[in-house]
């Protein structure tokens, strides 16, 4: 029981990290990873390979699924010298960022590395992603229409 709970915790951690990494700007990801100066022995098991995924939407927004079109996706799988296998799939064709993301996916499966990566890499990236979203949201909010009613006649 505790084994599967630990497993699902690692899973949640990996999924969250993948979201942060996929939404990060490539330059920021590269920069922060380089600054960490981690010496990682990771061999590439698969890729980098660029292919297509077909995007699906839902008719009416929430109805039955339909295919909208394709997007380019690049994937990489790496294995650490210690055996952990890391995967990454990102939109686009930037193989380098995906290789870094796959390495991080492998590293955070080790409890020892997970904390440092969270503190030095995922945390800062998460913050930057959030501030980019917030800026967009705030710029849009400034274009929100404030209706006012003109009262006519007597009450």
């Amino acid at each position, binding site marked *: 029981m505790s084994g599967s709970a630990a497993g699902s915790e690692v899973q949640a951690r990996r999924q969250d990290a993948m979201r942060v990494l996929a939404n990060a700007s490539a330059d920021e990801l590269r920069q922060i990873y380089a600054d960490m100066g981690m010496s990682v022995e990771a061999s590439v098991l698969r890729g980098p390979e660029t292919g*297509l995924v077909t995007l*699906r939407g839902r008719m*009416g*927004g*929430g109805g039955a699924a339909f295919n*909208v079109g394709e997007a380019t996706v690049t994937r990489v799988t790496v294995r650490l010298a210690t055996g952990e296998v890391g995967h990454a799939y990102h939109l*686009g064709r930037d193989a380098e960022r995906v290789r870094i993301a796959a390495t991080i996916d492998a590293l955070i499966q080790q409890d020892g590395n997970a904390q440092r990566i969270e503190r030095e890499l995922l945390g800062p990236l998460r913050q930057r992603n959030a501030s980019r979203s917030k800026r967009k949201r705030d710029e849009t909010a400034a*274009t929100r229409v404030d209706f006012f009613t003109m009262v006519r006649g007597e009450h």
Partner: protein
Amino acid sequence: MYVAVKGGEAAISNAHRLLADRRRGDRDVPDLRIDQIAEQLSVGVDRVMAEGSLYDKELAALAIKQARGDLIEAIFLVRAYRTTLPRFGYTQPIDTEDMLVERRVSATYKDLPGGQLLGPTFDYTHRLLDPELAHDKQVDKPVTREGEHEKVVRVSSILAQEGLIEADGEMPEGRVPGDITRDPMEFPMERDTRLQALARGDEGFLLALAYSTQRGYGMNHPFVGEVRIGEVELEFEVPEIDFAIPLGTVQVTECQMVNKFKGSAKVPPQFTRGYGLVFGQSERKAMAMALCDRALRAGELGEDRTAPAQDEEFVISHADNVQATGFVEHLKLPHYVDFQAELELVRKMRAEQAKAASDAFDLAAE
């Protein structure tokens, strides 16, 4: 007599070299960078992504550069590139309710949760050319205002609460969505397959058809329930991982068209709907798609099919601009033998006609 010949290699090669030169233009003018196209001609880039049916801004921008700004040629380049890549699979359907909204307007409700968000729109501009743009005009930073974090509910959910509008649109349980990139198109078509064809259809063609429905050719009295533009997250399931992988975000435009419907033997009077979903910021296309989707549902809703926009085979067969341009433009390629045969035939017919006339004259003279 026509004798087949070979030739033209040198002419073709020189023509392509000349094309490369003309594409580049005056060498004293700086070369266009891909990021300049992606950033400053972004709506054109979005159109190439939508109709090229490939979400990749850099590739679309490259295609526009290579095509000298000819968007249909750029779409053709992108479509050709697509065929060189393996397919990894299908994403989870995107959730447009969970969108990071950049624009959202409704023409049916003034006050609705999330509000009317104009975003970066051409609407309400005066359409006056700005001479200052001819130089490197300094542009002000956008105004910001503390945004609310509330979910921007789809307007269709609001109407649904009253029960006056049809549901989102369902397909039979267990149906795998049709895929025109995998299976040849067949008519009649299911709505899911049709939506895929419309999503990559030519904006101009769909716009004209949508306009025709407004002018009375298949009238369906539309309201824009909502148009929204923004970023949605993509998730993808692969066998090697036990959870859905977040791939990153894409920008899409969604249009919920709401249409008056007087009801039929099967359905009570209610509002019906058309749906549009397009890559990038492509509001005109999303609206045209939604109007065409609704018009093409005529059969399903028991309406008379009298107008071109309601004719599924006509609309879907002619919506793809790569197919259309291929067939129209192939006419300029050598048809020497074809034409020679036609020429022979016309000469023969003329000769026969002349002979018949002179025989008749001889007969009359006798």
